[in-house]
């Protein structure tokens, strides 16, 4: 790739991204507008996360790119190829090995360390968009910390449905100040953002916003005193590794049509399967600090 600068972006673009990212880190949860560039990947397909990664990455990094928890997802493959081509870095599927992880809509099951950065691809950075279509108005709401309409929206859900309807893009309060969209991660992943050891960066390319949640930052999902925040529950273990502590997804076998429930974090699931098969594999602790043993199949 002789024709392109290291990491594809020109230095002017990298500086713009770097300046804005530093401001984002200084103002946790606040969406910093930035001069988002067109990339060789379509808008809406990860150009924001990609630009953040390319502004941060260096030849010594090891990068993991995964989508919906799977490293093998076609779009993750495409992004990973582009990054490796442009940056001369080593790719990995192992969350423990990666110094940079670019993700679409999931946080890895293994707890990240201080030396790791998680970069989210964000489609819609504005958490208040559900209640207000105008950008000018939502910016005013953040400026005045007027989040009453979101609270009302949640309250109306409880009146109508007995619970809050929001499943992903769950509104969180960051550092007690800004209401923030943690990207379309499931509720299951939201608690991982609170007081983490690692830095979280969020890039929205089409909407042209960067935001950040630094390590050791308070991140609280909106909830009512009498109706606390709940995460997803699964009534079966993973069919492949037996996990009862991970986020699972159901799918239908292409040949038999049978419904199957399995870990969405495929590399974590792989490691557990390999361990169960007798291989010596390093598996990281999960976010509550524990290392759950393998489920014993009957």
């Amino acid at each position, binding site marked *: 790739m002789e024709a392109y600068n290291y990491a594809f972006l020109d*230095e*002017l673009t990298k500086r713009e991204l*770097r300046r804005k990212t530093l*401001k984002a880190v200084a103002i*946790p949860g606040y969406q910093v507008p930035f001069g988002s560039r067109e990339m060789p990947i379509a808008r809406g397909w990860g150009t924001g996360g990609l630009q953040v990664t390319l502004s941060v990455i260096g030849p010594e990094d090891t990068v993991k790119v995964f989508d919906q928890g799977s490293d093998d997802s076609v779009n993750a493959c495409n992004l990973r190829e582009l990054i490796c081509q442009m940056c001369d870095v080593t790719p990995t599927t192992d969350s423990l090995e990666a110094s940079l992880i670019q993700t679409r809509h999931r946080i890895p099951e293994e707890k990240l360390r201080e030396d790791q950065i998680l970069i989210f691809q964000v489609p819609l950075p504005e958490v208040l968009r559900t209640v207000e279509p105008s950008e000018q108005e939502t*910016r005013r709401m953040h400026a005045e910390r007027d989040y009453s309409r979101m609270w009302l929206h949640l309250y109306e859900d409880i009146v109508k449905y007995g619970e809050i309807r929001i499943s992903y893009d769950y509104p969180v309060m960051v550092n007690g100040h800004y209401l923030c969209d943690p990207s379309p991660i499931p509720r299951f992943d939201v608690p991982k953002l609170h007081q983490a050891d690692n*830095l979280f960066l969020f890039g929205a390319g089409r909407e042209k916003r960067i935001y950040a949640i*630094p390590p050791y930052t308070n991140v609280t999902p909106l909830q009512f005193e009498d109706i606390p925040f709940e995460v997803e529950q699964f009534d079966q273990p993973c069919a492949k590794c037996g996990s009862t502590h991970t986020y699972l997804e159901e799918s239908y076998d292409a040949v038999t049509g049978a419904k199957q429930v399995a870990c969405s974090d495929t590399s974590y699931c792989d490691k557990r399967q390999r361990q169960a098969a007798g291989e010596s594999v390093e598996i990281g602790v999960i976010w509550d600090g524990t290392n759950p043993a393998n489920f014993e199949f009957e």
Partner: protein
Amino acid sequence: MSVGVKSMERVHAVQQVYRQVLDAMSRPGKIVQIEAPSFVRCEAADAYIVVLGMMLLDQSVSYEVIGDMSLAEQLQLYTLSRRQELQACDYVFLTTTDAATQASVDIESCKRGTFTFPDESATIICRVHELGSGSEGRKGSVKLTMQGPGIAEEQQLSIDGLAGSLVSGWQASNAEFPLGIDWIFVDEMGRVACVPRSTKFSWEVA
């Protein structure tokens, strides 16, 4: 293009400095080390300032230098950026450790952003004698005790070469979060520590 150093060396040097500064900004008070690149042709202590400038400055933003004017020239040469007065600029390079000069700087006049756009605020790159983790600290050092995002419980930082009057101006500028100014400290040995506006701190002089 600036001084003709358009090469992988420059690209990688600046990226490495950025990673260190990003880490330091994410963990206020953590001391990181940056390298003085060989292609910056001046003394190491100045080279740290220049490479920080190369990471941040170009025609899209503006800066001001308070202190060493030859350093100001170097910055201009390596970044081709625009000078602008203190109240309007995006990056302030405070390169003198002379207490009187420091005391004369009106920190509170620097851009603090607006409630709608708090990011449109200045960043101060402040050169000091020595940064330390807080327990030691020469007489006259400012010792910060900090809490907030990026800090697990509490973090201490000692800064030798920072005037007390600047610190009170600094606290006043940052009194109304999210308005405020973010600081990047760099000492003569290339150690860097950052204090973003999200950090609450108390301070004393050793």
